[in-house]
């Protein structure tokens, strides 16, 4: 199970713009680096990151090997309704991880 760290406010006012931060442990191996044996280490990256708020997509990002190891992403969203914000990462070698937070909108 991949290690995921998500930061979001627990309660927000309706209509407020909030910052969402997500971090995941992942090597983001570029495929351009030789290993100890001189052979290139095969590429192993996260290719896609998506966030949904109660099922509706609010953010999507396509990553390349140039995104640093343990990808950290911060973005904003307008709080419309209470619910679950779900974050999903997919990538090479059938990598798939997710995390979610509950946000109460008052």
């Amino acid at each position, binding site marked *: 199970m991949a290690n995921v760290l998500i930061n979001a406010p627990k309660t927000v006012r309706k209509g407020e713009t909030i910052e969402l931060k997500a971090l995941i442990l992942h090597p983001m191996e570029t495929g351009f680096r030789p290993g100890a044996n001189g052979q290139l280490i095969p590429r192993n990256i996260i290719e896609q990151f998506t966030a949904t708020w109660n099922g509706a997509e609010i953010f999507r990002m396509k990553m390349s090997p140039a*995104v640093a190891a343990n990808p*950290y992403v911060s*973005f904003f969203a307008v709080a419309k309704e209470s619910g679950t914000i779900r974050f999903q990462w997919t990538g090479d070698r059938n990598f798939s991880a997710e995390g979610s937070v509950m946000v109460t909108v008052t």
Partner: protein
Amino acid sequence: MMQPLPTRRAFVAGSLLVTVLPLASAEATPDAMAAAIKDVVGEAEIRLGRVTLDIPPLVENGNAVPVTVRVESPMTEADHVRAIHVFNEKNPQPHVFNAWLGPHNGKAVIATRIKLADAQKVVAIAETSRGEFWSASTDVIVTIAACTEDVK
């Protein structure tokens, strides 16, 4: 002797065209980045402005360089930033990331951390719902390179 004149003139005119046309997007950017940008933008005009690309000008470690892209936009249904694309010149590949946004984001601001293999120029391009492209670029000096550090 009348024959060479028009062709020479055409050649001069042609070479002028070639040098003048790509000015807006290309300013000495390496070909790979220009091609990657063209893949995203197509033939549309890229204008400077509205985008702020925050990267420390001097980076000690290219393995994790903090980057923030801010785009001035009302982020309304009618006028919002649809996507933000970031490119680099000298990593093995010109792509860094593409992110898709909408009016539900409220602010067109993204922060992340990237790898830079060398001192180089990083370019951010914002695509608006009106089909406009705005850009910003920053020159970064990197002392410890990422991506290919073990290659000699």
